[in-house]
C-alpha cells in the first residue's frame, strides 16, 4: 500500500485536499466520481488508511492489477448478475462492520460522457445498513492520465483528489421516508460535483455515452401521449457547473 502511494506522489503532481474529513478510525464509505480506470489507484492512494473496494474480476487477470489491486485492498467480484452483486454488497457490509474504509462508485460505472451521472442508491443503502458515514470525493485529472483506451497511465500530469464533509443517510429521513435514499444520493452527487468540478446530469451512466454526448434512452415501457412534447434529456442546452464556493452542508434533507 505504502509502495503504491509513494509511487503515486513521485510519478504525478498529486494533490490531496480535505484529508481531515476521513475519520481516523471506524467505518466510512468512500464515494468518488469515476472517469478513468486509474481512479482505483489514485483515490485509495490518497487515503490515510487502507481501504477495500469491489473490482471487476476480469481486472484480476491483468498482471498490472493482480498485484496492485490486492495491495490496494480490492475484493474481486464478477460484476454481472444479481446474486453476485448481492454477495459483493454483503462482503462490503462486512468490511464496514469491521470498522474499515470501503470505496464504491455511486455512478456504478465509468462516465464515458465526462458528466457526473445520476447516482445509484446502492451506496446509500450500504451506508444506512452499516451506520457508516459517507465521504463524497471529487477528483480531477485522471482522465488525462489514462484515457479509456490507453494501456498505461501517462506520468507527469496533475491529479487532485478532494474529500468532502461526511454525510449521513439518517439526516435525510431514512428509514421512514421512502424517498430518503434517493434524496441522499442526489445530495451526495451534488457534493461530488462541487468537488470534481463536473457538470451533473440526472441520467444513469451508459456504456453508449460518448464524450460530451449522452446515449438516447432505451424504448420506454409506457407509451407517451401522442401530443406531448419530447422530454428534454438535460435541464438546459448547456448544463451549468456547480458553485464551488458555497459552504459544505451541516446535515439536511
Amino acid at each position, binding site marked *: 500500500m505504502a509502495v503504491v502511494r509513494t509511487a503515486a506522489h513521485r510519478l504525478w503532481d498529486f494533490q490531496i485536499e480535505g484529508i481531515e474529513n476521513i475519520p481516523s478510525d471506524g467505518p466510512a464509505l468512500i464515494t468518488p466520481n469515476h472517469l478513468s480506470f486509474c481512479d482505483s489507484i489514485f483515490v485509495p492512494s490518497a487515503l490515510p488508511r487502507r481501504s477495500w473496494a469491489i473490482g471487476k474480476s476480469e481486472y484480476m487477470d491483468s498482471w498490472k492489477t493482480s498485484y496492485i489491486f490486492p495491495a490496494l485492498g480490492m475484493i474481486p467480484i464478477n460484476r454481472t448478475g444479481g446474486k453476485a452483486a448481492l454477495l459483493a454488497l454483503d462482503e462490503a457490509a462486512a468490511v464496514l462492520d469491521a470498522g474499515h474504509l470501503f470505496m464504491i462508485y455511486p455512478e456504478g460505472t465509468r462516465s464515458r460522457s465526462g458528466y457526473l451521472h445520476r447516482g445509484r442508491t446502492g451506496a446509500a443503502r450500504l451506508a444506512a445498513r452499516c451506520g457508516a458515514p459517507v465521504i463524497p470525493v471529487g477528483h480531477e485529472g485522471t482522465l488525462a492520465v489514462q484515457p479509456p483506451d490507453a494501456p498505461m497511465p501517462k506520468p507527469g500530469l496533475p491529479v487532485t483528489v478532494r474529500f468532502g464533509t461526511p454525510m449521513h443517510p439518517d439526516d435525510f429521513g431514512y428509514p421512514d421516508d421512502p424517498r430518503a435514499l434517493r434524496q441522499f444520493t442526489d445530495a451526495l452527487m451534488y457534493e461530488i460535483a462541487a468537488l470534481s468540478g463536473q457538470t451533473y446530469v440526472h441520467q444513469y451512466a451508459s456504456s453508449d455515452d460518448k464524450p460530451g454526448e449522452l446515449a438516447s434512452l432505451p424504448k420506454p415501457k*409506457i407509451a407517451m401521449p401522442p401530443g406531448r412534447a419530447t422530454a428534454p434529456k438535460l*435541464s438546459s442546452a448547456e448544463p451549468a457547473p456547480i458553485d464551488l464556493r458555497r459552504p459544505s452542508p*451541516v446535515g*439536511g434533507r
Partner: protein
Amino acid sequence: MNIASVIDGHESATTALIEEGQTMTYGELGAQVTAMRAGLAALGVGKGSRVLVIGENESDFVVALMAAVGLGAQCAPIRASNPLPEVERKVATVDPNVVVLCTTAKWLDGSLESIGRQVCAVQETVAAGAKLAPAALVECDDGDTAFLLLTSGVTSHAKVAVLSHGNLDWVQQAVVGGGDGLNCEDVALGLLPLTHIFGLNVVLFATLRGGGSVVLQQRFDALRSLELIEQHGVTTISGAPGMWHRWVNTEVEGNPLSGVRRASSGAAALPIETFNQVRDRFGIEIGEGYGLTETSPVLTWSRGVKPRAGSVGRPLEGVEIVIVDPDGTPTDPGDVGEIVVRSPGVFQGYMDAPEETAQVLTDDGWFWTGDMGVFDADGFLYLVDRIKDIVIVSGFNVYPAEVESVLLEHPEVRGAIVVGAADPNTGEAVVAHVSGQVDIDELDQFCRERLSRYKCPREFHVVDELPMSATGKPLRRALRS
C-alpha cells in the same frame, strides 16, 4: 345500464336526502326524478343532449342531475354562487341545449334568457312533468357520456372533462363494495360541492347506491357541519383538508364525531398535523385518498389499511399505476417520477380539445397525471408535487412543495410559495415568497439546516399577502417571473 339507477331498488320509505331538517325519502326522490325526466323530455332532452344544471348542494340539484343523466343526456353541473360573467362563460363553453335552474339559481332567471337557450327551473319542470306520460330511464353503454365536468386547475385554463357512465359506475362500485363498504345504514355529510367529482361520485352517487342518506349542506360553516353530523348521526365524512382543519379547530362540547366510522380526505394534500389533530380530538384516523376529475376520481386510498402519515394510500384494485421518468421509462423503486395510471375510471378526454387530450391520454388508455409521486416498499403512494412546478438547479430536481413545507415549519412564517427563476449559473434557482414577520438571514439559516444545499432558496421575498386561488390553493403561476 344508467348510473341514474342508483336511486332505484331501495326501500321507498328510507331517507335519501336531508336538507335543512327536511327529509326526502327514496320514494319521494324517485317520484320527483321521474316527473323531471318527463318534463325535460318534453323540452327535447334525450340521449346525447347537453344539459347544464346550475345549483348548489340542494335536493333540486340531485333531482335535476338524476333526471338529465337518466335520459341519457350529458350533464354539466355548475354552481349558482358563480358571478354572472362566470356562468355565461361556462354556458358558452358547454353550449347546452337546456339550462336547468335549481332554487338557489333562480336569480339567474331572466339574465340567461338572452343567450337564446331553453331555460327551465326544477320545481316548475317537476310539476309540469308529473302531468305527462312518464319518460323511461334510457339504456346507456359504458362509454356513453354522463357528465361534463369543468376542471378548474390552478396551473392551466379550464377544460371540460368528459366522463362516461362506465367511468363513474366503476369507481362507485369500489367505494360502495367490499367489507368496509357503504350500506343503507350509512349517513354521509354532503358538504363537498356536487359540481366537483369528489362530492358528485364519492359522496352523492356512492351513498345513494348503497341505500344510505346524504345530509346536504350548501355552504361551509364549520360549526353547522358539526351540529349536522351529531344531529343526523353521520357515519361517513369526505372532506377537503381545509374542512378537516376547520372542524378540528372549532370550539364545541364533547365529540360530535363519535358516531363516524369512516373519514376521508382528498382534493389536496392533507397536512400531517391535521391528521394528528383529528385523531387526537375526534379519535378518528383520516384515510387520505388521491384522484383527479379525469379519473372519476379515486385512484388510491387508505381504506382497509392503517393510514400512513403523508401517504395517499394504496391503489384501488383494478387501478394500474406506474411511476415514470420524463420519457416513460419506469423509475427505480423509491424514485420519484410522474404518476401514470390506467383504470376503468379514466375519462374519455377533454371536450372539443383533441390536442389537450393528446397531451395526457395515450391510445391504450394510460393517463399521464402531471403529478409527481413515489411508492414506498409496501406499495403506499406519496405525492410530491406537480411536474410543471419542478425547479431544476444545476441538473438536480427541486420540488417546491418540499421547500414550502420546510418554510412553513418556521414559527414566524404564515404562508410560503416557492417558484423557480432563471439563473445564469445554475439554469434555474429556487425563489421563496413568504408572508409573516420573518428575518431573511435567519430564515436562510433555517433552510440550510434542513435542506440539501441545492434546494435552499437563492433569494427570499417577504410579502404581506400571498396570491391564492378561489379554492384556497397557493397560486404559484402568479409569482413566476
